[in-house]
């Protein structure tokens, strides 16, 4: 008997919005529950016990230590559905898809939901380290003089709240500053970045107008469409923006970088047998995945370059080249990130010295790249992006027809990258 195979049944997400806007009052748990509820409604899962729900958030409040389980308990799923929180920065929900697919392949579970959420609006605010130490001392103090001494050591400057940093702990650089170094190293031009950005917005706008997202998105809090999307953006409009990373000579702007986004997404992953028993559609099979990490700390490699390593290893293991794929989905953390990956794969030097290949991996056909738009236009609620991309790619493969193949690649903080292959059933 062959091992069971995991298939993607479908996905559901809320429309993504810019931080501090329509979802400003929604917590990460509200958003994640909304994404799950929509998925449950789409596939008639109310009252069902699933094998596992796996998901997470990047910006996470300590009260949300069991975020995914709490969202399951608040959803219409059977409360005896187990859940686990996992985290791999921006690759969180793609890693969740891999985790569930592996459990399905080993027969440990039959069904699961991979999901992710991020709300920059609900970001935990942390107190300064000095105030934290003082409060801990105050808590430990047993006598009134000791308590007063602890309180007396508080200085006004200690009271300023600390917003969560989006900087890499080991380098102190933001993700954009890191990418700016890579962008410069690969000589990625402003024009190329803006072109990719316009293409992303136009493709996402076309997909929305064609009804592609009708099966993938459920309105939430009165929002019916991705709000970061600018269908009318143009090279001229983007050219007017000032660089935000890489200094005055930099090429990266607010236009060709992803915006801080609130949103949640979920994808239903089950065994083929389970899908058949429950009369559910089978959009695409999960084939294989690879995670890579790079040493970015001392500048050995760019922070967001790990997918440039994960993808070639994944292709080699499966005996595939870019030409074997119908769709290639590369997460657009920044337009320059995608272009740096493409440049690396086209570089003889990079592929021979860094990847140990005998020649360059080759070019990606732009007609297959992010065909229905990606994070620049849709937005990027960190942990939700993997589930968004998985569900969208599965739907595209289903439409393309049996045997068609798709590749997903996501870069993540910490110098990591995750790639996965799906194939239409």
């Amino acid at each position, binding site marked *: 008997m062959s091992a069971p195979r995991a298939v993607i049944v479908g996905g559901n997400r809320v429309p993504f919005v810019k931080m501090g806007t329509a979802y400003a009052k929604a917590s990460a748990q*509200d958003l994640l529950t909304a994404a799950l509820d929509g998925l449950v409604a789409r596939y008639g899962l109310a009252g069902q016990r699933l094998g596992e729900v796996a998901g997470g958030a990047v910006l996470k409040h300590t009260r949300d230590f069991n975020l995914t389980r709490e969202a399951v*308990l608040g959803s*219409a799923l059977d409360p005896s559905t187990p859940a686990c929180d996992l985290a791999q920065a921006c690759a969180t929900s793609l890693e969740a898809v891999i985790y569930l697919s592996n459990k399905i392949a080993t027969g440990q579970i039959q069904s699961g939901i991979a999901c992710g959420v991020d709300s920059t609006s609900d970001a935990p605010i942390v107190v300064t380290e000095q105030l934290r130490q003082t409060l801990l001392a105050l808590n430990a103090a047993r006598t009134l003089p000791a308590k007063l001494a602890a309180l007396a050591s508080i200085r006004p400057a200690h009271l300023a709240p600390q917003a969560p940093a989006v900087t890499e702990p080991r380098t102190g650089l933001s993700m954009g500053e890191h990418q700016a170094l890579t962008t410069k190293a690969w000589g990625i031009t402003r024009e190329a970045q803006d072109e990719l950005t316009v293409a992303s917005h136009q493709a996402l706008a076309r997909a929305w107008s064609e009804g592609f997202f009708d099966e993938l998105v459920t309105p*939430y809090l009165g929002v019916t469409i991705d709000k970061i999307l600018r269908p009318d953006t143009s090279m001229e409009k983007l050219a007017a923006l000032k660089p935000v990373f890489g200094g005055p000579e930099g090429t990266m702007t607010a236009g060709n970088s992803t915006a801080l986004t609130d949103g949640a997404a979920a994808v239903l992953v089950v065994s083929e047998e389970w899908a058949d028993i429950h009369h559910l559609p089978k959009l695409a099979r999960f084939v294989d995945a690879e995670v890579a990490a790079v040493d970015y700390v001392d500048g050995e490699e760019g922070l967001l370059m790990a997918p440039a390593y994960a993808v070639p290893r994944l292709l080699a293991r499966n005996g595939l080249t870019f030409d074997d794929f119908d769709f290639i989905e590369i997460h657009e953390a920044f337009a320059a990130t995608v272009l740096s990956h493409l440049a690396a794969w086209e570089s003889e030097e990079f592929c021979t010295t860094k990847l140990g290949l005998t020649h360059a991996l080759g070019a990606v056909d732009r007609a297959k790249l992010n065909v229905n738009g990606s994070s620049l236009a849709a937005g990027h609620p960190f942990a939700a992006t993997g589930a968004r991309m998985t569900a969208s790619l599965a739907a595209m493969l289903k439409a393309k027809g049996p045997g068609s193949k798709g590749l997903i690649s996501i870069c993540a903080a910490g110098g990591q990258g995750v790639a996965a292959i799906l194939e239409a059933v």
Partner: protein
Amino acid sequence: MALVVLPAVPDVKADLLKALGTSFGRKGAPGGLPEVTAVVRDVTQDRERLAGYDRVCGFRLRDQVSATWLHVLTFPLQTHLMARRDFPFPLPGVLHVSNSMTQYRPVLVSERLDLSVRAADLAAHRRGVAFDFLAEIHSAGELVWQGSTRYLAPGAPMDGLPPVSVDERDFPVVEGTRVWRLPADLGRQYARVSKDANPIHTSTLAAKALGLPRTIIHGMWTHAAMLAALDQRLPDAFTVDVRFTKPVLLPSKVRFGQRAEDGGWWQAVTTVDGLKPFVLAHIQPLKS
């Protein structure tokens, strides 16, 4: 019954002050209930306020609003009727003893609603005189929600009134499995989002003036928190009957439990030791 169509949802604080200021000289049960239905049409729901309400009561923020939120929307019409000079009972001392509501279908926050409330069912109660506020909510002409809020005006029962209709069912006290910690400022938090600014929930002085040691939480907060505990297991169409047996002082720790039975749910909020019930509820899905 005359219709009084109000141009906008009345201001609860102003009506509460008016009702308090005109407490004396009200006729009591012999005065009869005002023969009017207060109506406000085409009411827009405030998403910001709903988000605050959901947070305070423990609901997840959804496009679908809770049945208790719909009650909150009609509450200003209750206080408006109570503030009228022809309303027979003085506001201080009137107790909310039970509540019943039916949600006919899920209502979205985007819907514009027509609200109506009237007072009815003057009846003899063993501790005074009872009456109901009967409320209805229509959306584009369709009845979507109905509520009945029973109050008790303590005092001497009046002769000649019909006996109060009693829900004869025995509400079981369900064994509590959860502990709820109600913070001291919960009354103020709920007052902000519900607009029920009755000082008995927000001011210790006012509570003491009415013979309570501390402030008490609004019965409708407890009711809402109980419904919120069912999350998505709550049916789309249902009736919920609630009995308030004892006020919950703030701050306090209470016990909550629920049990499924015959497609519905029994719920109870009790003292932590489980001996005395504060609020009992029964939820029954509507048969389609």
